[in-house]
């Protein structure tokens, strides 16, 4: 108990101190995870919607695959991306290994299935309600899918937040492709891992609390936004 109380006050003083290193680590974490979420949403929402309203051979198999990949182990994704981006790998010439871009790529791959699978479910449920009317009006295929996505945007927000949660929480992928380089690819989760391995558990826990607080704040803001918008648009 004492450890936790210590770390809570440690977290508070960390935030209050405005420590520059901490600030840059937090900023990088946000940049990497938010970029990954943006990319994964851009690609995953239409993908999920297309699968939801489409009818094609292998659709069921694809749905099962997508659902299963929600549980992709981050460290495995990291390893695969590492092998791809390594100089000895196929994309080595891009020189992306050990950069924040590599981290974004790995996290995007990791959370794309989450956003796609959850939006597929939401769109499919909504499609039951909307299908006849949309088809009657002449909206089909991608057009219908995009109309649906926009109409159920508040429900889809949950899928996006799930992706954000996964991205900001994981360490396995970013540590392998990023290399946890001080000042370059060190983010909150990798710092926590590092401090833990150095035995500085109170600091690690304090950083963990800062991270959780950050994610809480983002979720609260998203919820508030959603409530406001729902009141305006029904």
């Amino acid at each position, binding site marked *: 108990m004492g450890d936790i109380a210590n770390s809570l006050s440690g977290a508070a003083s960390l935030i209050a101190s405005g420590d520059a290193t901490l600030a840059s680590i937090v900023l990088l974490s946000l940049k990497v995870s938010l970029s990954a979420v943006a990319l994964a949403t851009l690609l995953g929402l239409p993908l999920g919607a297309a699968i939801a309203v489409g009818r094609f051979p292998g659709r069921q198999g694809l749905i099962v695959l997508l659902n299963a990949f929600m549980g992709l182990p981050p460290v495995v994704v990291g390893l695969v991306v590492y092998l791809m981006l390594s100089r000895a790998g196929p994309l080595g010439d891009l020189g992306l290994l050990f950069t924040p871009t590599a981290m974004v790529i790995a996290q995007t791959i990791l959370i794309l299935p989450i956003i796609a699978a959850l939006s597929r479910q939401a769109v499919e449920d909504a499609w039951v*309600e*909307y299908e*006849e*009317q*949309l*088809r*009657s*009006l*002449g*909206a089909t295929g991608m*057009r219908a899918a995009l*109309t649906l996505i926009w*109409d*159920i*945007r508040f429900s889809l927000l949950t899928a996006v937040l799930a992706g954000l949660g996964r991205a900001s929480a994981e360490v396995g992928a970013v540590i392998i492709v990023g290399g946890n380089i001080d000042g370059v690819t060190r983010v909150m989760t990798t710092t926590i891992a590092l401090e833990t391995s150095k035995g500085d558990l109170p600091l690690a826990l304090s950083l963990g609390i800062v991270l959780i607080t950050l994610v809480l704040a983002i979720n609260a803001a998203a919820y508030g936004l959603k409530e406001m918008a729902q009141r*305006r*648009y*029904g």
Partner: protein
Amino acid sequence: MTMRAPTSILPLAVRDLSFVAGGRTIIEHMSFELAAGPRTVILGANGAGKSVLMRLMHGLLRPTAGEIAWSAEHAGRKQAMVFQRPVLLRRSALANVLYALELADSPRPGEQARKALADVGLSHLADRPARVLSGGEQQRLAIARAWALRPQVLFLDEPTASLDPTARHAIETAIDAIHAEGTKIVLITHNLGQARRLGDEVLFLHQGRLVERAPVDRFFTQPASAEASAFIKGELPWV
């Protein structure tokens, strides 16, 4: 008269239509023709196949056998359908009508949308979110949206079943106005009074078959088939 497309998709010829789903035969060897002009009401007990027939005609379902033959191409764009419960987008009332017009590549969507709302008396709610409107207002909006495209045929599947008498009256007024402008009305209803008010002819379905077809007055006063008699008595036991 504001008929848009010069080529009429009517008459519609339904030939030997069958529809099987989940192992059950829902429509069985149905044949008839729908001509422009008379308002057609489809009647029948629950499970007779009325909604399925309407969806087959409108193209939402594909026949298992037989054909739905319109008299011109692109019949899909010249029809519209109103459902029992209107499905509106999370946008303003005006935006909902705009959406339909934009889908149809209308030349002046903004102008047409406002006119459509005015036609059903919803101009004052143009910027209100469609989903917060009352049931009756939503259904009027759905009709405005369908009517904005000036379809040649308007299908309505129990459009007032969920509405109170005042709202029902408003909808019936709108349907009358639409018919007056030349659109063919095809209506499913359980409300026999509404059938008499709005219909010119009746298609009576029983267990997936077209059992009787008659002008509306004769259908109710002198039903030719036993099933129709039983139906009317069942719905109006005092007759």
